[in-house]
Every structure is written in structure tokens, then in C-alpha cells.
């Protein structure tokens, strides 16, 4: 295979990932850009492969993105993200009957959280709670460590958190605002039972990462094709819907600062 093919890594967190990347590959070909993809079962392996130069670009979770930056001494290239990756927040939800009126009331209660590598349902909500002076040693954590390695992509652990709240196994829970709003608009949240106690500050989510050695011309071809996808074009719409975005956006770094802090202070998981 000739060298000008751009090889992108992605994690197969769901069968639809094959559909998404077959679609993106076909779209890139239509744009005259040779692209192929390699699927990994977990982000740790994908990050290693990127660092070893097996793939040109990796479609990374925020945790994987920050790890790549650490491992490359901040020399890695950020190529693009989804509109839906910007200004993510996490929600601390509580049962209305739990008597939790402030963050300090969480002490002594059960807080359901997602997988240990989920940025939005575990790492950052706990980090922000510490910053708000909640003593997590006094909070009983009910952790749903499902799909570890997928960095929370499947959303399974967030759905588990919501079930635990609905059925009373937990009095409080942490989920991303995307799931919170989507589950509400799908009619799957009982507003008589669950309410929002607190919303975290914003942070950013997934990112296309590359090594600094990626040829500038390859990076440009990739970005040009990526940013030309159009929500109103039926040929692109299906892929964008599956991947959960309406528009690809240029990268920005400030949205990962709190995650870097959290990893520096507490490591990858509690």
C-alpha cells in the first residue's frame, strides 16, 4: 500500500464503529483522500500504537488525548474534535427523597459513579467534588466499572448510574450532561424521583491526535476532508448521526486543563 494512505485508529466500543468508519473511509475516498482505519479493543493499546507509529492518527477520548500529550511532552498534534466534544459538563444528580441539599450532604450517602476510565462519569466529577471540598472518604462510592478500556464511550456505566438512582441503590450519581439531556428528552428520566444537585465546570471531550512526525501535507488533507462533512448532506448525515455530532470543529486545548490537573493529583482512577 502506498504511503499517502492516512491510517486512523479508533476503538471498537460498539459494532456501529465499523459502520461509522466504513462510512468515513468511503466519504474520504469521495473527497480524493486515501484513508483507512484500524480498530482497537481499548484506548491503552491505541495510544501505544500511535506512539509506536503504527497508525497516523488516533481518535481519542479526553483521557487518551491527555495521555498522548504527556507521553510526547506536549509535542503531539491535535487535529479536530466534534461540536459535541466542547463544553461538556458532568451532573451530580440526587434522588429527591434523599434529603441532599448541598454537596456536603453527599457525605454519608451512596454516590453512583461510572467506569474508572470514564472522564465524565468518574474522573472529573470526583475531581471537581474534591475541589468543592467534599471529603470523598466519607462518601460511599457505588462504582460501575463496565467496559473498562473503552473510557466511558459505551455510556453503559452512565445508564447504570441512572438505574441505580431510579431504583434507590444510590442516593446520588454522576453522569455526563449529554446523557442527562438525551435521556430526559427521550422520556427515560422520572423527574419526580431525580433532580440535579450540581453541575461541574465545563471540559472538552474527544480529539484526533497525531505524532509531531505526521507529514504536514497528510494532516492538512485529513483536516480538509473532515471539516467538509455536512449535516444537511444525506451522504454524510448518517455517519455524523452515528458518531454523535453535527459539525467537526478545529481543536482547542484549554478544555483539557482540569483533566490534566486531576491526573497529576490523583492518577488515572480512584
Amino acid at each position, binding site marked *: 500500500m502506498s504511503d499517502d494512505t492516512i491510517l486512523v485508529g479508533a476503538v471498537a466500543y460498539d459494532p456501529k464503529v465499523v459502520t461509522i468508519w466504513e462510512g468515513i473511509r468511503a466519504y474520504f475516498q469521495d473527497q480524493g483522500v486515501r484513508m483507512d482505519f484500524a480498530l482497537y479493543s481499548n484506548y491503552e493499546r491505541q495510544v501505544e500504537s500511535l506512539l509506536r507509529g503504527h497508525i497516523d492518527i488516533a481518535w481519542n477520548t479526553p483521557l487518551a488525548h491527555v495521555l498522548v500529550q504527556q507521553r510526547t511532552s506536549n509535542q503531539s498534534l491535535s487535529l479536530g474534535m466534534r461540536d459535541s466534544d466542547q463544553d461538556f459538563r458532568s451532573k451530580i444528580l440526587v434522588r429527591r427523597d434523599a434529603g441532599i441539599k448541598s454537596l456536603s450532604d453527599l457525605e454519608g450517602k451512596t454516590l453512583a459513579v461510572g467506569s474508572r476510565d470514564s472522564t465524565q462519569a468518574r474522573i472529573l466529577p470526583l475531581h471537581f467534588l474534591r475541589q468543592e471540598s467534599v471529603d470523598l472518604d466519607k462518601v460511599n462510592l457505588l462504582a460501575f466499572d463496565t467496559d473498562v478500556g473503552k473510557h466511558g464511550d459505551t455510556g453503559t456505566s452512565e445508564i447504570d448510574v441512572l438505574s441505580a438512582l431510579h431504583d434507590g441503590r444510590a442516593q446520588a450519581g454522576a453522569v455526563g*450532561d*449529554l446523557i442527562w439531556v*438525551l435521556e*430526559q*428528552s427521550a422520556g427515560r428520566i422520572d423527574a419526580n424521583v431525580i433532580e*440535579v444537585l450540581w453541575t461541574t465546570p465545563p471540559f472538552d471531550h474527544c480529539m484526533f491526535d497525531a505524532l509531531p512526525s505526521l507529514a504536514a501535507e497528510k494532516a492538512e488533507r485529513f483536516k480538509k476532508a473532515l471539516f467538509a462533512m455536512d449535516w*444537511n448532506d*444525506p451522504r454524510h*448525515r448518517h455517519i455524523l448521526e452515528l458518531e454523535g455530532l*453535527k459539525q467537526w470543529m478545529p481543536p482547542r486545548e484549554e478544555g483539557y486543563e482540569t483533566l490534566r490537573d486531576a491526573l497529576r493529583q490523583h492518577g488515572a482512577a480512584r
Partner: protein
Amino acid sequence: MSSASVASIAVEGGDLSLGEGLLAIIRPALDLMEPGGVIAVLSCSRQTEEDLSTWCRIERHEFLGCEEISEGKFRHLIRRGSLSVPKGERETALNLPLRDGMLTAADVLAAVPMPERADPATGFAPRGARAEPGGPSFPYTLTERDTVAPPQIAELYDQAVGAQWDATRDIAWDKIRPLPAALETALGQMMTFLAENELSALYLPSKFISQIHPAYAEVAMFLATQLADEARHIDVFLKRARVKGGLGISSATSSRSLLSLLVLTDFTEAAFLLSVLGEGTFLDLLKFIERHAPDEPTFDLARRARADETRHVHFGLAHVRHALAHDDSLYSRLESSVRRRAATLHNVGGVPSAIQDALTILAARGSDPPSVRRGHESFRELLHTMHENRVKRLESAGFTREQAETLSRLHTPNFM
């Protein structure tokens, strides 16, 4: 919040949260806006601001901010984004006319006319609905009004719906008595032939329904009545044969003729060969059966079937006439399709012999030689009448007398 943002409309959200149905108030309000238009959402729910902001991020609307307008009462401003905006004008009250309390498809069509061309990406969106962009393209091939929809299509549909009848209850089956053996056999043969031909008239139009763009749905709806008619005819003809007798034979000639219809791929050619030429010829055949019917139920079912077939012929004529008026090349295309079909049937000879005999015996009302002589004479007259009437129909479709004569003679000896 931008002070320049002035909301065009305000909606009252009360204390509803997103999880309690608030979006059912917000989304229809946003739908009234052009992209860039701003709505105000009045709310006294504490959660609303953050959830609305997240929802706007997901939907690519712009959340302009929130201000407290009085104690515990907030105003959120949302600017409509440019994605997922349906195309076309919003349909408003059409003031459809009622006639004696009835609402006809023809009046609806007059109020919501068919577009000249239709976009396959609007899928199954009914004409008049605004289609959200980004939907898949559908495999419609009939996307131009003048090749698919004659102007009187909705009237034909209204008539067809009003004229449906029931092969189980509407025929006086109890009035059928046993016939002399020769006549019973001839009748069974005729009914077999009619049912076989009606099967082809059921199958052929059904091939085209899924090719018709829903902007011209009245055509598909009319064809659906045509299919229901054919189903009923098949039912009633087979029942008539079986009340006291049984079915006759299916000839290879009929089979070859009907296959040459079934393989047609062009809607206008099919309407021409099936409805104008085939079903047109069947009008004379059914009239013949009425005239020589051995009993009242047989007369009645042939008469009813002929009334239905007359509508199909009207549709075929209207369709072909309208298409001819918009496409000069169509004359020669239709002519060559008749010639092509005739070429595939060139050695089939005359009317299938079993049908010749059945028609003769039917007209003779028996098999004694003097009656058979009369019956045979009637059969020969039928062929002549069929030709004369085909020529008239072809002329009415827009062909010259000379073209009509030629095409009529090339028509299949199988009648359909």
C-alpha cells in the same frame, strides 16, 4: 446575553424541566423561526438554564443566555441554528371545499397541486409536508408530473373509490342453475380466460407503484383501486366458473401474450399496452359476454367488471394523451413498443382456439349446428367491433387514423 437579540415569540414553560416535557413547547416554537430567529422561553424551573444550554449545544442552536425578569421567573433566549431546517413553505389552512358534506381527493389536489418535478430525497413525505434535509434518496424513477400524472387523476380516484363492489355479496349467486354441458364448459373456459388476463392486469401495474414519487400519490392510489378491481374480478370470474362447473384450460398463446406485457419496464408503455389496447379490447369482450350471458348473475358480473375496466381505460387514455402532449418522441416509442410486442408474438396465429370455441358456443347458447353457425357469426362480428373500437380509442389518444389502423391490427390476438 446579547442586548441586540430580540425574541420574536415567547413561550411559557412554567416549572417544567426538560425531563418533564419542556421540549414539546420549545421545539414547535423554534420550528416557527427561520435560522437566526430568536425565541424566549419563560420558566421558573431551576434546572432549565443548564439543561437548555446543553440541549442547544447538542442541537446546534445558540443559547443566548438567561435573565431573571421577576422573582423566581426567568427568560431564556434561544437562537435557532441552521441545521435540520425543513425545506419548503409551511402549509396553512387550505379552506378545502365540502360538497354535500363530502371532501373529494380532486378538491384536495386542486388545493395542493402537484409539482412539475419531485425530489427523490423527500422520501415518503406527503406532498405539502416540509422535508428535513439529509434524508436518503429513494429509488423513484417516475419523478416528473407530465409523464406520470394526468390532470384528471384525482377525479378518477374518487370515482373508483365510490364504485367498489363485493364479489361475495353483490352477485345473486343463488340464481345460478345448471347449464347444458357444452354451455357450462364454454362458460368455464371464458371465466378461466378472463381470470388469467385479469391476473396479468393485477401484476403489471403493481410493478410501477413503488417507482412513482409520492408527490404524485394520487396516481399510486388510483392504481391501488385498479389492483383491488382486478382482485375482485379474478375472484368473481373464478367463482362463476366453479358454481356449477369448473375451470378450463390456459393456452400457451395467452401465456406468451401476457408475459410480453409483464416484462414491460416503462410506465407509459405499460399503460398504453395494458389499459388502452388490452383493457380497451376487454370492454368489447365483456359487452359480448353480457349480451350472451346464460343467466342474470353472469350478465351482472360482466356488467360490473366492464364498469370497472372502463375506468382503467379512461386512466390509460388520460395518461397517454397527457404524456403525448408533453413528449413528441412518445408516438414513435409507443408505436415501436406495439411492433416489438407483435414481433415476439408473430407466429401465435389467431385468437386462442379454446377461446374462439367458448365464445362461439356462448353466443350460440348451445352446440346444435344452426345455433353454432349464428354463434360463429357473432364471434366474427366481435373481432370486427374490437378492431373498430380500438381504432377509435387510439385516435382519441392522439394517433392518426392511419397509425390507429396499423396499431390496432398489430394488437395481440389474445385481446389483452
